[in-house]
């Protein structure tokens, strides 16, 4: 067992400082120092002196040792933490990835929706344009129709105009046509809609009787509502015959289906 004086005198403290003592002796000296503040102060002074001596004899090591040391510590840190850290990193990555993916998905959806909207709008515009064109066409048609109708209306609804109904005889009992004669303007207008249909090889033709002679007034086109016929001066009657398609120079009297006196 060591006491303060033995320690001081035998150089044990110096050996303790230098780390020369066995583990057992070291523990014992440490314990004694802990309990003896005076001895501890003595030891502290010795430490100070030794430290100062070491500092006076310091030699600067090359700078790369420090960077080597710090690097190897950094490396050993990452190695020792490898078991724990990667999971967190993965989490971090997946978290970030999730945000990025969400944003991308949102962007994709928005883009898709906008594209759809754009396509719809475009389709609507095309439809509207078509409709507008259609309406314009129809307007033109309606205007044309109106002009036509107006023309016929003015031609017909005139006090100077004589309205004559040509009824079909026994050869074509269901047929009827209306002729409007304006002696002032020398106009004849015919509505042939009431005439019975003929096959394509035949046609109706109109004739004017002037002093017993039949004069051609024109072929009746059946697909029209109103036809302007030739006005013949001094006609006694209007006659309709059935003739070969394209019309005839002379009327086929046997085929007379209607006549009316003026």
């Amino acid at each position: 067992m060591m006491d303060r004086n033995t320690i001081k005198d035998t150089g044990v403290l110096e050996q303790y400082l230098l780390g020369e003592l066995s583990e057992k002796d070291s523990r014992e000296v440490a314990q004694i120092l802990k309990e003896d503040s005076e001895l501890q102060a003595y030891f502290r002074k010795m430490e100070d002196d030794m430290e100062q001596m070491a500092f006076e004899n310091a030699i600067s090591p090359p700078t790369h040792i420090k960077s080597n040391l710090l690097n190897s510590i950094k490396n050993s840190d990452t190695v020792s933490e490898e078991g724990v850290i990667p999971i967190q990193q993965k989490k971090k990555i997946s978290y970030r990835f999730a945000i990025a993916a969400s944003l991308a998905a949102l962007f994709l959806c928005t883009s898709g929706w906008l594209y759809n909207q754009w396509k719809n709008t475009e389709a609507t515009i095309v439809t509207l344009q078509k409709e507008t064109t259609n309406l314009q066409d129809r307007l033109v048609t309606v205007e044309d129709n109106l002009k036509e109708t107006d023309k016929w209306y003015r031609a017909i609804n005139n006090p100077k105009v004589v309205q004559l109904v040509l009824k079909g005889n026994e050869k074509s009992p269901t047929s009827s046509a209306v002729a409007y004669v304006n002696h002032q303007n020398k106009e004849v207008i015919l509505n042939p809609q009431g005439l019975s249909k003929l096959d394509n090889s035949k046609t109706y033709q109109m004739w004017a009787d002037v002093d017993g002679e039949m004069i051609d007034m024109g072929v009746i086109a059946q697909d029209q509502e109103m036809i302007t016929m030739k006005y013949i001066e001094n006609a006694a009657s209007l006659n309709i015959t059935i003739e070969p398609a394209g019309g005839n120079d002379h009327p086929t009297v046997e085929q007379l289906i209607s006549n009316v006196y003026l």
Partner: protein
Amino acid sequence: MKDDLELIKKLQNQDTQALSRVYDLYSGAIYGVILRMCKDEGLAQDLLQETFMKIWQKSNTYDPEKGKFFTWSYRIARNITLNSLRKKDALLIQTEDLSVYKERSTSEAGKDITQLEGSLKRLEPHHQKALELVYFNGLTHREAHEEMDVPLGTFKSYIKQALKKLRESYKEELGIVWIIIEMMR
């Protein structure tokens, strides 16, 4: 030098910046010890790194109650260096290449860089030698007294006296510093 307990606390909490600071403070003094022990710059550099690696890893075992941080670090450096030298010696003996084997205490290699400085130089030669052997060459008291060819008791008193002289010279220095400081005021 007073220990910076806050810095040491940070080091114990594995703060690499604290290690960097500790290295800046102590590496020179420790390298001086290691290099004088092994007298081989390459090896000394490796051992210095190994020492600080150990300081880093074992920092939590340092107890400020038991002694100064430098004393603790010095012991680590000394142990690492002595172990390495023992291995080297064993290897040399194994290979029987005794021609390259030299007593580390008597080696002349790197004498110029390992020349001792400061107050130690002003001590009497046998005091200086005694301190050098145990402190900078890492010899045990037993080895050192044989090296100096004096009885162990005498050797121990050499150390004691050397330390006493050292303290006195430091006190003188402190006194001079104090006078200079006073004069500057």
